[in-house]
């Protein structure tokens, strides 16, 4: 029965991962309602939720890389993934995210019990200075442009994005799904618009998926991904995309391939930790873990092992499914009019934003897309747009957020 439930979760997760704008958090109330209607036990319902969440992480890289429609965790994979797709290496890009996810999962599970105590101590010790740590990373990120004109341009992008983030997160705007228009505008739509305007065609793809980086680099990227996933899990100030940006800058991982492995490892590490934190500290860290806590209360060690089992089983199947889809989908992309597909995806995303966030969401996506495109024309990295989350975090942890709100009168 549990295996059947995992398979159902995998199907729902694949649906959430492939459809732009669809997220497990959107479907949670419906899934819980259906689970109760079908008289699933509490354990079965939780297994269904974790299978869906894990599968969504793997499969979402497909829509992120092939059609530029990411979610928060995969938003930074659009550019390196798309670059590989246009080099005819889309399947390799998918294979790299699967490697990062599967091996990241194994490493995260082996690390989590052994180093979680050390992380808790480190977190407590570093909390008063956490904003300084983030400021240091931001300076490092801006300085990596290595040219005064570009550094100034990157600073402008960082502050414009930060201002947008501050207004959206601290004014009376509803926070439900608010990150969807912001991040899709920064990372997804500019890629799609450029593909449409430049009449990008998908070149014939290499389906052998030969990995063009060394084993040493793969191991390094997996290790960095898992450690960063744990850090994201423990440090509330750092999100998946910020961690991926910082790690790639610090470790000098400039190759798109390393980056894809690392970001996949971070995503899976963060998901595992958000569930494990229910057991370790009784504190939920994601929509799914909140739902699990509501269903089970504080989870026991046995329940934790049941959920880990479901995660491992679902990850295995989801990895195979992602590889299968990663081979099939580019074959269709080669045949169909890619410009038309991108145009339809843009329309679909805009419709989804309107339905989920209303007219204000459209205004937000218009603004974030303009800022995202500005990066292209100023020739600076689009990751500076993460200022939308980093600037509010710095202000919050430095205790200056009230001053900023008063200053901006929001």
């Amino acid at each position, binding site marked *: 029965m549990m295996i059947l439930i995992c398979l159902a979760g995998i199907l729902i997760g694949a649906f959430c991962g492939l459809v732009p704008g669809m997220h497990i958090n959107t479907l949670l109330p419906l899934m819980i309602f259906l689970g109760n209607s079908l008289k699933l036990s509490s354990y079965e319902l939780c297994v269904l939720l974790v299978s869906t969440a894990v599968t969504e992480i793997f499969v979402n890289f497909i829509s992120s890389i092939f059609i530029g429609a990411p979610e928060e965790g995969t938003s930074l994979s659009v550019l390196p993934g798309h670059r590989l797709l246009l080099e005819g290496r889309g399947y390799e890009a998918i294979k790299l995210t699967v490697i990062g996810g599967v091996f990241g999962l194994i490493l995260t599970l082996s690390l989590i019990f052994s180093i979680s105590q050390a992380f808790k101590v480190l977190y407590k010790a570093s909390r008063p200075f956490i904003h300084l740590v983030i400021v240091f990373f931001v300076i490092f990120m801006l300085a990596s442009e290595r040219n005064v004109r570009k550094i100034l341009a990157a600073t402008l992008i960082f502050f414009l994005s930060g201002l947008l983030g501050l207004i959206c997160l*601290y004014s009376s705007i509803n926070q439900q799904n608010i990150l969807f228009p912001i991040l899709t505008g920064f990372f997804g739509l500019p890629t799609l618009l450029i593909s449409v305007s430049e009449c990008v065609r998908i070149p014939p793809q290499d389906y052998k998926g030969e990995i063009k980086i060394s084993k040493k680099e793969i191991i390094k990227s997996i290790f960095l991904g898992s450690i960063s996933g744990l850090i994201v899990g423990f440090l509330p100030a750092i999100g998946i995309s910020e961690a991926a940006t910082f790690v790639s800058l610090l470790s000098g991982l400039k190759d798109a391939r390393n980056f894809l492995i690392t970001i996949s490892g971070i995503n899976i590490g963060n998901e595992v930790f958000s569930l494990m934190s229910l057991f370790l500290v009784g504190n939920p860290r994601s929509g799914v873990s909140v739902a699990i806590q509501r269903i089970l209360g504080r989870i026991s060690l046995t329940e934790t092992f049941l959920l880990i089992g479901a995660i491992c089983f679902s990850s295995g199947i989801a990895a195979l499914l992602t590889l299968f889809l990663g081979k099939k989908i580019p074959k269709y992309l080669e045949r169909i009019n890619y410009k038309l597909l991108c145009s339809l995806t843009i329309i679909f995303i805009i419709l989804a934003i309107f339905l989920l966030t209303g007219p204000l969401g459209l205004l937000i996506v218009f*603004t974030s897309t303009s800022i995202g495109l500005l990066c292209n024309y100023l020739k600076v990295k689009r990751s500076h747009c993460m200022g939308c989350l980093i600037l509010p975090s710095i202000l919050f942890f430095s205790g200056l957020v009230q001053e900023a709100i008063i200053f901006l009168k929001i």
Partner: protein
Amino acid sequence: MEEKFILIACFLCSISGLTLIYFSSKALSPEKVSIPEINFEMVGRVVTTEGKIVNVRFHEAGHMFLTLQDGKTRIQIPIFSNLMEKLENFGLSREDFREGRRIEVTGLVEEYDGQLQIVPRKLSDIRVK
């Protein structure tokens, strides 16, 4: 030339978009709801509610946790240390939040430990009556 034109257009769109979002957000007033009307589907929305303080709890880290009641329904209002500090600088003391007083709170509906709470984020979000 064309690239420069697009660059300027993107910059102007960014600035005008930000300005419009700023003024639209200022024009938005949070939905007014009574405590019994608040439910899990509202998580993520900014609402204004009013109630009587029935419990006050202080945390060693400087946070204050109020329990508001309206009829038979109660809801938790966590006021985190950074906002608490600003409230005190603004002239509101812990005494102003004693049991029995009515307050109006604006904040984000969140879920913590399976319970709903309203998290105020700025000074103007808390009004002692």
